């Protein structure tokens, strides 16, 4: 049962570690970070998007997210694969919460792992921008006296 001492070292590079998911449960930053952790990584960048208590000063009671789940997962995976390729990532995790998200809780968590910090910083930011621009998820802001479907600025009228 003893493993050869070199058994954890691989000469062929491991397939990149890609995790994308959506859930109705609270998100965990620790869990996202663990998913991308690797002895080959020198940097993990973690981004947590949390729900704000106002929109331009108007109090928000809570936010509710809905998704075209099949397509949203496909788009998230495609973004993750592009980011791995472009920034030579070792791992990437994108998880988005659905349903009602109380104020101050995480609605999206992105974790990226790369050999060096520069690539990890860049990939973390770019992943978030791509997710906001194209993943098929919609946010309903509930004000108490009405609600509004929010639109991310450049998600509108794109051709691809």
């Amino acid at each position: 049962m003893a493993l050869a001492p070199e058994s954890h070292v691989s000469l062929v590079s491991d397939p990149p570690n890609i995790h994308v998911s959506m859930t109705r449960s609270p998100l965990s930053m620790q869990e996202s970070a663990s998913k991308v952790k690797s002895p080959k990584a020198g940097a993990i960048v973690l981004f947590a998007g949390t729900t704000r208590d106002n929109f331009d000063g108007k109090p928000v009671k809570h936010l509710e997210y809905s998704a075209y789940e099949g397509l949203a997962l496909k788009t998230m995976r495609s973004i993750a694969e592009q980011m791995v390729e472009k920034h030579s990532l070792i791992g990437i995790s994108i998880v988005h919460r659905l349903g009602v998200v109380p104020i101050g809780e995480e609605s999206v968590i992105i974790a990226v792992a790369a050999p060096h910090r520069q690539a990890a910083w860049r990939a973390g930011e770019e992943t978030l921008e791509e997710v906001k621009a194209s993943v098929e998820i919609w946010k309903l802001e509930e004000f108490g006296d009405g609600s509004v479907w929010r639109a991310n600025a450049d998600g509108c009228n794109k051709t691809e």
Partner: protein
Amino acid sequence: MSLKPPPGFFTILYFAGAKDYTHKEKELLEAPLEVNKLLDVLEKKYNGIGEKILSSCLLTVNLGYVDTTEETLIREGDEVAIIPPVSSG
């Protein structure tokens, strides 16, 4: 959401503002139908939807985006969706 529609029909899904406007999450429409005729079909059922909703939306057929000006045929069993401007994050 992925239940197969009966023969002669396709499924159309509505999200966010499109769901509010139609008061439906999905329905069955008659197939086959040219994508560029879909707007007319929806406008007849939901007066004003073209200008108020569809003008800012994209369209997918079987999880792929399609150009609404091109001659794409929607076939029976297809899953079509109206995609309003997204707002994740």
